[in-house]
């Protein structure tokens, strides 16, 4: 394996990790506020569909992005109403949202475009184009640094850079702002936040909305940047891998970056080498595909560091009367 191949695999890993990273951070906001969200998959799927549809009709990727965020926020609202206002079971609500997205996208897609649930493929400004960072071409030929800068760091769509910027931003919001402090508190001990005179419901709705926005960007990235259009079930379990990454990262933003990169890398390697040959044994691609889930189970089992979820996660807050 030469240097160029490594760069190519890493480049592919960055592209593949972006939706995972966005969805993982989305789940992070929601779960740190005490709202479990297994509907990340559905929200991304819905966002991918609305983004691709609007981008196709208007020819603008940016309007597509807005539509993606809108579609995802709609499902977030359902999740919020079910789990915050009506104090329902958050896991069941998440399951329902995944099915709702899976059914509605095909139903609406078939109605609007008549292509069996696909949208027509997107071209030109309907997709986010790749950005060439300054000086990328001039230093391409420099040894080591050149290819790393020109091929790995430069040449992604704007959404990739937004996703990476979200990591320090999330860290800052969570650990350095009043909102972040309250968000973390409401996920650990909502009664104390309520006692302090801060609305638990409002904080949780805010967290669920942020989750919707980030899932929206993730879905829009899938449909208008990574691929050119929406395909039925195009999220292909990414929402669950993001969920796995969130646990792997123990609900922390910088660790989320590491975890999603690892999972993106696994996917990139599995794509490039369907049967990975390492000396005496051949690793089948199925194993590589299942590895994120296996790793998460091992982490969950607490054999490699303990993953402790926010204490009030999954429990509706019932105010004392």
């Amino acid at each position, binding site marked *: 394996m030469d240097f160029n191949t490594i760069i190519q695999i890493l480049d592919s890993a960055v592209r593949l990790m972006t939706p995972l990273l966005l969805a993982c951070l989305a789940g992070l906001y929601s779960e740190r506020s005490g709202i479990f969200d297994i509907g990340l998959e559905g929200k991304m799927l819905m966002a991918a569909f609305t983004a691709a549809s609007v981008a196709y009709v208007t020819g603008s990727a940016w309007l597509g992005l807005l539509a993606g965020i809108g579609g995802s926020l709609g499902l977030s609202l359902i999740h919020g109403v079910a789990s915050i206002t009506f104090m329902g079971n958050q*896991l069941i609500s998440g399951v329902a949202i995944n099915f*709702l997205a899976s059914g509605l996208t095909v139903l609406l897609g078939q109605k609007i475009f008549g292509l069996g649930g696909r949208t027509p493929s997107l071209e030109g400004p309907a997709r986010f184009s790749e950005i060439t960072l300054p000086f990328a071409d001039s230093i391409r030929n420099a040894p080591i640094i050149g290819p790393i800068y020109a091929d790995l760091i430069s040449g992604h769509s704007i959404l990739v850079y937004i996703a990476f910027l979200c990591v320090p931003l999330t860290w800052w919001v969570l650990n350095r702002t009043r909102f972040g402090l309250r968000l973390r508190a409401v996920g650990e001990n909502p009664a104390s936040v309520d006692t302090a005179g801060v609305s638990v419901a409002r904080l949780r709705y805010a967290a669920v909305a942020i989750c919707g926005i980030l899932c929206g960007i993730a879905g829009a990235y899938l449909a208008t940047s990574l691929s050119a259009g929406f395909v039925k079930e195009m999220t292909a379990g990414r929402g*669950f891998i993001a969920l796995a990454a969130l646990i792997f990262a123990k609900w922390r933003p910088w660790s989320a970056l590491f975890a999603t990169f690892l999972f993106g890398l696994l996917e990139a390697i599995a794509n490039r080498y369907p049967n990975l040959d390492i000396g005496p044994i051949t690793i089948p691609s199925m194993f590589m595909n*299942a590895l994120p889930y296996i790793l998460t189970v091992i982490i969950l089992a607490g054999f490699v560091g303990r*993953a402790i979820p926010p204490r009030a996660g999954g429990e509706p807050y019932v105010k004392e009367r």
Partner: protein
Amino acid sequence: MDKMPKWADVVLTPLISLVLAMAISALVILAIGESPWMALTTMVEGALGSSYGWGFTLYYTTNFIFTGLAVMVAYHASLFNIGGEGQAMMGGLGVALVCLALPWPHWGVALPAAMIGAALFGAAWALIPAWLQAKRGSHIVITTIMFNFIAAALLNYVLVNILRPVGSMDPASARFPEGTHLPKLAEIAAGFGIEWGKNTPVNITFLFAIVICFLVWVLIWRTRLGYEIRAFGKSEPGALYAGISPVRITVITMLISGALAGLMAINNVMGEAERLLLNSVEGAGFIGIAVALMGRNHPFGVFLAALLFGFLYQGGGELALWTTIPRELIIVIQALVILFTGALDNMVRIPLERMFMAMRSKGKP
């Protein structure tokens, strides 16, 4: 004092939830420019209008009874098993291994062996998440989700690399030997000289599923273990105080749940496909969640809800065949049923409770 009479809790709330789900589905059908009435008549005609339709409806019903019971049993112990999909996949593997292992002389011999295989593999797939939940405190919902994906990858590997016959391209096992073919209900009916449900996949497993419903009822409400499961589900500290071991109950409940999900494979793998296919479960494991919620976690309710979903499934197929409505409509209905009966339960229940309270206080002078 109960806020509501029991019949309202058991019958009224799921019915209202169902009506809400159906009303929104009707709106969705209107939104895509079709007539909800026409859709309903097509579905009823296609699923219940002929013995052919019933044959398919009951076949799907059989699948959903097993996965619904699996979710239900776990739910009584306050465990949410969304791993039915993976457990049913593994059950299929168990059935295939048993069926392909020997040249079975007669289905009557093969069936008990295959049932043991299905139940063992399904239970084994539930064992690890159960043990991790009981011993290490890792959330069973997350681990069972992960195990669904791991099961899919494992099955893919086994089919492509081990069970695939030489020279075959598609990832599927060889056909099961003649002696493992289960009698179809149509054949049994023909034996009595009745022509019923020709060329439909519903088989003897359906009758067997009804027996299992009854056995699960006995287990949950008439045995010591069932009492312990329910006690544990209601209050873990309470159960602990009564000398019930949380680890034991969690593991046993999940083993039963996994075995029930695995047993579904008798119907779809042994009874219908007669070989192991890659995507034989087709989401039935997830439909089990809707079935259990709709059926209010009672075997009889599960039976009725499975029948409803069997009807929806077969009707949905007919819709896709005769109209421009894709069969994904069924997934939307399923999502809405889960949403209203599961997550938005309080939305229906609280106004109802208020209504009954108001009626009661009016009744007393």
